[in-house]
């Protein structure tokens, strides 16, 4: 397990959920993540922007079979490490670890 480090960027509930979702997937579509955490497009965009600015998430566009553009999110190596450290800190604080 990584050393516990609290990360204020990740800790906000919406961003914590986004990181949790992306930590399990190689890539996830913006709309799928938005629906899973139950926020609006604008709130989701702000969360993603903050994670992107921190270097934790990359955003890419790809055309679907229908020809429509879809936005895909991916947790970076730095994002994965920061999330694992944050989870370790939460586990420590919760007295589970």
């Amino acid at each position, binding site marked *: *397990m990584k050393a516990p480090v609290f990360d204020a960027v990740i*800790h*906000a*509930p*919406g961003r*914590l*959920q*986004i990181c*949790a*979702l992306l*930590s*399990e*997937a*190689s*890539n*996830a*579509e913006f*709309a*799928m*993540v938005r629906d*899973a*955490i*139950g*926020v609006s497009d604008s*709130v989701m965009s*702000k*969360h993603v*922007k*903050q994670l992107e600015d921190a270097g934790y998430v990359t955003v890419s566009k790809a055309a*679907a*079979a229908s020809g429509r553009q*879809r936005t895909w999110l991916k947790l970076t190596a730095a994002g994965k490490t920061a999330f694992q450290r944050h*989870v*370790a800190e*939460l*586990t420590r*604080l*919760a007295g*589970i*670890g």
Partner: protein
Amino acid sequence: MTEPQQTAPHQSPAEALDSIRRSRAAVADRVAKNSKTYDLIYSSIAAVMVAGQAAPFPFNVMASTGACVAFVFLARRWAQKTGVFVSGVTPKRARWVAFAMGAVFVVLMLASLWSGRAHREWLAIPLGVVAFLLAGVGSRLWLRVFRAETRDVA
């Protein structure tokens, strides 16, 4: 930039860990959605890939190349359909199921290749059936291990 609206502004570490668990489960649910159809297509491709090795050159190479292209196409199509792409070898524990399946397929492909060289081409049919069944069982096992993995937060 203003702080985006939070879904739960004040959550305890235990509540935060629980929300992580729920989010991870949502990914597993997405992957599991219509996974039986996926398994059927995946198993069929695996069967063609294995049985095709008994065919003479260049048809055996065409079978394996075609199967690889079909696997990539299936993965892309399913990612678009579910909104999530999970590489078989990314999850820490489930990856071992994927590695084991890969090893089994290599053995089956070599056996099929040998059957073609030894003029026992009929063996390709049972080997293809075995590949079909093992691919289906392996895929279900991978999903089960992946689901269990998503339940463990730490």
